[in-house]
């Protein structure tokens, strides 16, 4: 009789410890995938923005050949949040455009935060080469 009771207590104990262990493992897996998801999200937002700025019909004639709408963007007449439908994409994003001849930053958007990745392209605009950088 004593053995039976002992067996029951031990089985309950083992189930309880296993339960705690499963919770811990699940939490670790959740954290792992959450980090990976955030990384992928930042990556895809960065790719979208750099391709949008250099390849979209609104801002360029052909790939990396920027048109006059781009000059409105740099002058401040055109707001970048007006031409992107999903404004949430612009949270935590920094965009820098630099003139390669004078080394002067001609456009800046967003604030510097904990950025995951940097995407840069050198493009032709208004007779010169400029560097477009998206930090996500």
């Amino acid at each position: 009789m004593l053995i039976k009771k002992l067996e029951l207590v031990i089985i309950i104990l083992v189930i309880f410890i296993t339960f705690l262990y499963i919770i811990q493992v699940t939490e670790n897996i959740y954290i792992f995938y959450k980090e990976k998801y955030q990384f992928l999200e930042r990556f895809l937002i960065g790719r979208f923005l750099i391709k949008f700025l250099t390849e979209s019909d609104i801002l360029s004639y052909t790939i990396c050949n920027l048109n006059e709408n781009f000059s409105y963007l740099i002058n401040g007449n055109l707001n970048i949040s007006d031409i992107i439908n999903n404004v949430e994409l612009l949270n935590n994003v920094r965009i820098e455009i630099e003139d390669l001849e004078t080394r002067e930053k001609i456009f800046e958007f967003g604030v510097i935060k904990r950025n995951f990745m940097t995407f840069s392209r050198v493009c032709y605009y208004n007779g010169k080469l400029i560097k477009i950088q998206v930090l996500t």
Partner: protein
Amino acid sequence: MKSNVLLIIEIILTIAFLFFLLNNIIPRFEVNLEGFIEEDIYASLISLNYIEISSKVELENKVCSILNEILSDYVVYINGSFICGIESEEYTRFIKFFYIINGDVLYIYIGLK
């Protein structure tokens, strides 16, 4: 007494099996993100077609300055001769590109890590 020994063996086996089972839950995440650097370099090199380049030296300077803005480790060869970057055997990916100046075709060969 016999059942007592069996009970202990049973518990040890159960715990060992459970730990084996749970420790083998390794989260897997494999996404190949390679290739976007090549895309950016091609897009940047295309912008060379919109500016006027008259000599080979000018082309070399432009290609090297463009790559210097985008990458830290690269090597550039034009028509087989070393132009700029760091020469190493660790380069695994290569980009081929060409440019025509005064009827001469210049083959640009870029190595990436």
